[in-house]
């Protein structure tokens, strides 16, 4: 404050000096014009007196102003000292300083200023860190390695894994997702994997799709390549399954994950009870693309639909169920040998799958991160129609094969990290329903964290002779890890 006052005084003196010099110059000039020395002296004397008086007045006004300002400062200091102060908050081990306190002003201390400065610096640093990535999509990577030991060699074990010991990098899944604009979001899932039998690696676009976010009437539309909503686990990525391998019935009837290239509409029925309806179409459904041929009509694509609902049986018990249907009126993509006659070549003409699923869960509200029980079931019925052409000659004939399969699993979680369960499977071959396979798999999972998980599973497969496979015992150790952002949204819940 003193320095400020001195500065103002200096300015004032300079101003007066300049004013005086100007006045003197003017007076001298006038004196030269009049050429009367006595008058000049008298006038100079008057001017000097005026100047001195003026200077005294200014100084007096200035002193008065300074005194008033000092009074204001004193008053403010008194008010500040009289303000109520919060008891000083105890320092928190490893924590930042306390948050701002609405309605509870703290005493202003240099320590608090310093803490505030540090907090502001942290916030600014955080903004600098995140702002440049605001326009980038959320990116995550999932790695999944499976160590396995099969008692039988390939292809007799019927698992897709080579016989004996194997290390299989099943997937390296890169996912990126973001809003496209106010009306849609988009995502891409690129999966690098090795072929279980040959070890050859390949890069595959599993999903690349957009989904509307603002259609009216509770509708969403998905288009591109995506996992079509069919059944309960067919649109779940491998690494998110509750056990190591995709159930046999989904592998055989759908062809792994329900990958499709097409479009899907989804409608949340606007009632108080949860009912969700889906209808879509795609030029493929599952791992193997349909045969394109030279011309594809609308009759040669897959149409699928699903209705699902949910019931709160109690606060802790939940029931989720659904029914699904898939039809390809002119599939033309299934080639193989029809057993048991073994003398014909099959060409698919029509593909239909009907599915029903039911999941009963015990999810205690209080400690569901440490304790839960899930019983999941799915049954599929496959109705394939073929044109069978005798390989030895003769006229082709129509052949219809109906087959069904199911899986049922029970998973119990007894701590945040540990869970275990049992999977039972049964499937009839969808090209020859005489071929039947049973499978039994106990499994145990250790989730070290959300992003790092180990699973050990034993599987005994018991096929009949019509399948051409042999009973097999397998041990799997699956190690799954995630880096970066990872979410498959509502569908992947």
């Amino acid at each position, binding site marked *: 404050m003193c320095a400020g006052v001195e500065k103002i005084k200096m300015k004032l003196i300079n101003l007066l000096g300049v004013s005086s010099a100007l006045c003197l110059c003017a007076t001298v000039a006038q004196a030269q014009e009049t050429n009367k020395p006595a008058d000049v002296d008298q006038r100079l004397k008057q001017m000097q007196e005026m100047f001195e008086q003026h200077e005294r007045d200014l100084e007096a006004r200035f002193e008065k102003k300074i005194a008033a300002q000092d009074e204001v400062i004193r008053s403010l200091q008194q008010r500040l000292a009289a303000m109520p102060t919060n008891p000083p908050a105890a320092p928190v081990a490893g924590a*930042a300083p*306390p948050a701002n306190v609405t309605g509870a002003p703290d005493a202003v201390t240099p320590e608090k200023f310093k803490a505030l400065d540090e907090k502001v610096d942290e916030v600014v640093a955080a903004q600098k860190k995140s702002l440049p990535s605001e326009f980038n999509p959320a990116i995550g990577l999932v790695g999944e390695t499976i160590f396995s030991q099969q008692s039988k060699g390939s292809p007799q074990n019927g698992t897709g894994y080579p016989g004996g010991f194997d290390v299989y990098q099943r997937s390296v899944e890169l996912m990126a997702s973001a809003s496209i604009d106010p009306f849609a979001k988009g995502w891409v899932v690129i999966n690098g994997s090795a072929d279980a039998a040959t070890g050859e690696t390949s890069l595959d676009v599993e999903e690349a799709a957009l989904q509307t976010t603002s259609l009216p009437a*509770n509708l969403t539309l998905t288009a591109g390549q995506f996992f079509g909503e069919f059944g309960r686990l067919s649109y779940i990525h491998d690494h998110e399954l509750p056990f190591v391998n995709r159930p046999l019935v989904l592998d055989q009837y759908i062809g792994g994950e329900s990958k499709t290239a097409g479009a899907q509409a989804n409608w949340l029925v606007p009632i108080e009870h949860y009912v969700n309806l889906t209808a879509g179409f795609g030029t493929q459904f599952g791992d193997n693309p349909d045969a394109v041929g030279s011309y594809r009509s609308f009759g040669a694509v897959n149409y699928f639909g699903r209705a699902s609902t949910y019931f*709160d049986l109690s606060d802790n018990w939940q029931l*989720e169920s659904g029914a699904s249907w898939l039809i390809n009126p002119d599939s033309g993509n299934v080639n193989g040998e029809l057993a048991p006659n073994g003398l014909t070549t099959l060409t698919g003409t029509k593909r239909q799958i009907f599915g029903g699923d039911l999941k009963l869960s015990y*999810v205690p509200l209080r400690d569901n991160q440490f304790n839960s029980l899930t019983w999941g079931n799915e049954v599929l019925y496959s109705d394939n129609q073929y044109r069978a052409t005798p390989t030895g000659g003769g006229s082709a004939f129509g052949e219809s094969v109906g087959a069904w399969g199911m899986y049922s699993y029970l998973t119990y979680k007894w701590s945040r990290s540990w869970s275990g369960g049992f999977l039972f499977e049964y499937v009839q071959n969808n090209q020859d329903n005489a071929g039947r396979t049973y499978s039994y798999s106990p499994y145990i999972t250790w989730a070290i964290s959300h992003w790092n998980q180990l699973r050990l599973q034993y599987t005994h497969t018991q096929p009949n002779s019509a399948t051409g496979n042999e009973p097999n015992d397998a041990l799997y150790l699956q190690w799954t890890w995630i880096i970066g952002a990872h*979410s498959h949204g*509502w569908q992947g819940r």
Partner: protein
Amino acid sequence: MKLKLCCLTLLALTLGAVQTQAAKLRVVATLTDVADLTRNVGGEFVEVRSLATGIEDTHGVPLKPSFVPLMNRADLVVLVGFDCEHAFLSALLEASRNPRIQPGKAGYVDCSKGISPLDVPKSTDHSEGDVHPYGNPHYTLDPVLMESAVKTICAALIAVAPEHEADFVKNRDAYLAKLDAKITEWQATLAPFKGTKFVSYHEHWPYFAARFGLEYYGTIELKPGIDPTPHHIEDLIASMKSEHVPLVVREPQFPEKVPALIAEKTGAKLVKLPIMPGGVPNTDTYLAEMDYIVNTIANALKK
């Protein structure tokens, strides 16, 4: 003629009932604390449903499909914010198909707005566990900061139903007056225990500790969302003994075994404290919950 009259009367009554119901704002609150504040400010003009019942972990509310129709019809969704609801809210918002309550819209009421967070991580690397990128979200246990949440909720209600502004403001002021009085009472109750150190299972308590002059010493969890390792438990017991930490707080949704062991080995008192209304019996409102927390701590430290 009589039949027509009856039908018309019935129709009028039905429409009247529907209109009365429609006049209420449908609010979905994520957790019971912000639900209680909304009820207090919104009064008779709101119908508030909470996704949590109070006994859940704030990060572990089950993702039930039955929440979707609620969210679909909601005029407002009121949330704690700072990513507290990361485990369930974003998927529910996606499934709700409700443009009114999406982030950035008037119906998306983030109560953390205007609150300066503690423990903002310098890095969100997962080596630090399940960190909250915006900072510790558990400011709801600081009643002074909840005054800010009350004001945020009031402003949001006024924005969507300006015709009830006077009522909302009156309710807000009445609730803030009650809260202010309680804060003075709680501060007086805990004043004798200033500087007392305590540990808890999860990092729920830094704001509470700072407000009431206690010292938050650490967590039983190794890192947020990561279970304690034997080595961490041993270290914690040793340091608690040397620092004379007299209190172990267990949130009810976490297992009792490890906190009880630590309390036994260190001679500290073990208390079970809710982290939102309804977490333990007779704590159905925010004021009742805070009463319970303050009195339980005071009683434990007195003995």
